[in-house]
């Protein structure tokens, strides 16, 4: 097989980073990204892009930790380089506060982020309703910059990108040898995965440039994440809610909850409301599959279902998916050489 043609469906952080990993691990491949949406209209663009992992109930912890570590290491190097501002990657310090002491005082990722330690009494005084907290420094991937930077890196490798709604993976079998499914929430329709469900998140993006620190309630519902130009205030976790329309009652509720953690947000300007559907699953699906129809085979690599933790593990899962693409190529080359005999 001269130059395997790989189609990546999806252009959010998972699709773009997976496509980039494929160009890095399989330089002989021709990669094309197909998506109905590109930045700034993907789910990734709504997310704050904070590197604070979500725990998937059915993925082994060591695998989640490996994904997070690879992602953190990759972004750490970019944040330290001249490209940091273009890529939208920056360090941010802050606090995670709990109303009651969590069962697990040390999350699995505490030794990967920087300077992780419990908050001091003096620091906790700022949060009278909270009894326990953790201080650390982590990374943030601002979107659109990060997605645009990935697109730029892809274009430099000769990767083509097309706006196209793929209704069925079989549509692609005549033009492509391997299909990589990074369709996020779209996988529900595209591959009929009933285990994939939306967790609706509404956020406010506001102008409050004096907010330099993140604050997150350990329950994951209230958070303040300062980005390059805007601060993301959140949020909601509405399981099974498919609505992409902003809800005004929710907006007020988010604003009030965030102001109680950081009163100076009362002075925030220019409030923009956004909604995204976290493509949630009990475990992230990073898996090879060979689809078969009427004697024709189509190798597929799935990489979707990252829910609330897409940014935190994106590079790790992209590496794994690229590796699976490599396996697909070997399998195709093996069978094509067998066919020649």
């Amino acid at each position: 097989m001269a130059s395997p043609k790989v189609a990546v469906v999806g252009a959010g952080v998972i699709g773009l980073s997976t496509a980039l990993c494929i160009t890095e691990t399989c330089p002989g491949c021709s990669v094309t990204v197909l998506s109905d949406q590109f930045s700034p209209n993907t789910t990734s663009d709504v997310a704050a892009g904070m590197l604070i992992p979500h725990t998937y109930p059915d993925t082994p912890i060591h695998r989640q930790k490996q994904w997070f570590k690879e992602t953190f290491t990759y972004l750490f190097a970019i944040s330290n380089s001249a490209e940091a501002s273009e890529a939208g990657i920056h360090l941010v310090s802050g606090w995670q506060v709990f109303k009651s002491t969590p069962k697990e005082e040390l999350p699995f990722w505490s030794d990967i982020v920087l300077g992780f330690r419990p908050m001091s009494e003096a620091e906790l005084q700022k949060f009278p309703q909270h009894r326990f907290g953790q201080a650390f420094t982590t990374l943030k991937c601002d979107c659109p910059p990060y997605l645009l930077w990935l697109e730029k890196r892809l274009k430099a490798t000769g990767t083509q990108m097309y706006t196209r709604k793929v209704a069925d993976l079989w549509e692609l079998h005549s033009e492509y040898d391997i299909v990589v499914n990074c369709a996020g929430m779209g996988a529900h329709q595209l591959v009929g995965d009933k285990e994939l469900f939306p967790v609706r998140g509404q956020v406010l993006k506001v102008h409050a440039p004096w907010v330099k620190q993140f604050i997150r309630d350990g329950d994951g519902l209230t958070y303040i994440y300062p980005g390059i130009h805007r601060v993301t205030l959140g949020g909601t976790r509405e399981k099974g809610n498919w609505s992409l329309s902003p809800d005004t009652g929710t907006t007020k509720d988010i604003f009030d909850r965030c102001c109680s953690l950081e009163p100076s947000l009362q002075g925030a300007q220019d409030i923009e409301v956004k909604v995204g559907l976290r493509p949630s699953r009990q475990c992230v699906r990073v898996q090879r599959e060979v689809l078969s129809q009427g004697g024709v085979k189509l190798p597929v690599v799935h990489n979707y279902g990252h829910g609330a933790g897409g940014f935190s593990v994106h590079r790790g899962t992209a590496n794994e998916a690229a590796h699976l693409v490599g396996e697909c190529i070997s399998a195709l080359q093996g069978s094509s050489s067998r066919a020649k005999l």
Partner: protein
Amino acid sequence: MRVAVIGAGVIGLSSALCIHEQFHGLVPSLELEVYADHFTPHTTSDGAAGLWQPYLSDRGNLQETLWNKETFDYLLGHLHSPAAKEMGLFLISGYNLFTEPVPDPSWKNIVLGFRNLTPKELELFPGYSYGWFNTALMLEGRSYLPWLTNRLTQRRVKFFHKKVESFQEVSGDGVDVVLNCSGMRSGDLQPDPELQPGRGQIIKVLAPWVKHFIITHDSKSGIYNSPYVIPGSKFTVLGGIYQHGNWSEENSAKDHKSIWDRCCRLLPALQKAKIVGEWSGLRPARPSVRLERESIRLGNLQAEVIHNYGHGGFGITIHWGCAMAAARLFGTILQEKQQLATPPGPRL
């Protein structure tokens, strides 16, 4: 009772406010007047980045450490007030970097979350092998000074735009107490060989991805002569110049290059930052802050002067503690003039 405050930087305005807050109720005839040749945004305080951080060494002045602490605690108490944004007050974390281990500073328990840097954090800063991380406060002069001015205006304090040439000029006019908060130009009012300029120059850039302050230290070159990056609410300040005895307030191309090159080496992403301004100012440096009373005699008249100047590069850091100390000296003067029936108690 007329009180003239000379100087409208952070020291003059905060001293005026502190005195008015404490004594206006007790001395109904109290009239405060602020005289200055420069007002915000043209004072030294306006040029400073506004980071609360004392020098590394307290230079043996334990009183100053106490005043620093009083200022930090006072500001921390205002962090959640509705005024915080208008004051230009917010929390910020960051790094102090060294090329060798150093003793912990006098202020380690004043700031929040003080700790040493981990090896992984030090990877961010090649060339530096030791450092601290802590959370401190920013108090931006360009917001704080207008806020102080508004509070004073509400209290009917009067402002006069004039360069005062001598204490006699104001005291001869019927003023009972003079507060000398004239910073760098105190020497024009009364010679003080201990007061010397510590010239600084800064470049203002747009680098909104920088969320931490980064202050490097080089024991050989001395305080603030090593690159530093301080992100504000509107722009980021790049600095690293401290020239003792240099009175020039002109921006120097040589200093610009030195700041730019060294800061970009520290944070490579700064190469892409847009430069939006440059400024030079004179830190009113002194071996210790001059905060004391002096009686000035002119013929039959006697005026009390309270000196409050010489805060070097830590004026914002120490200002409220000094303002309260100046207010205590004022209280003593009032007692002596029997303006008060009983001495003022501690302010609750």
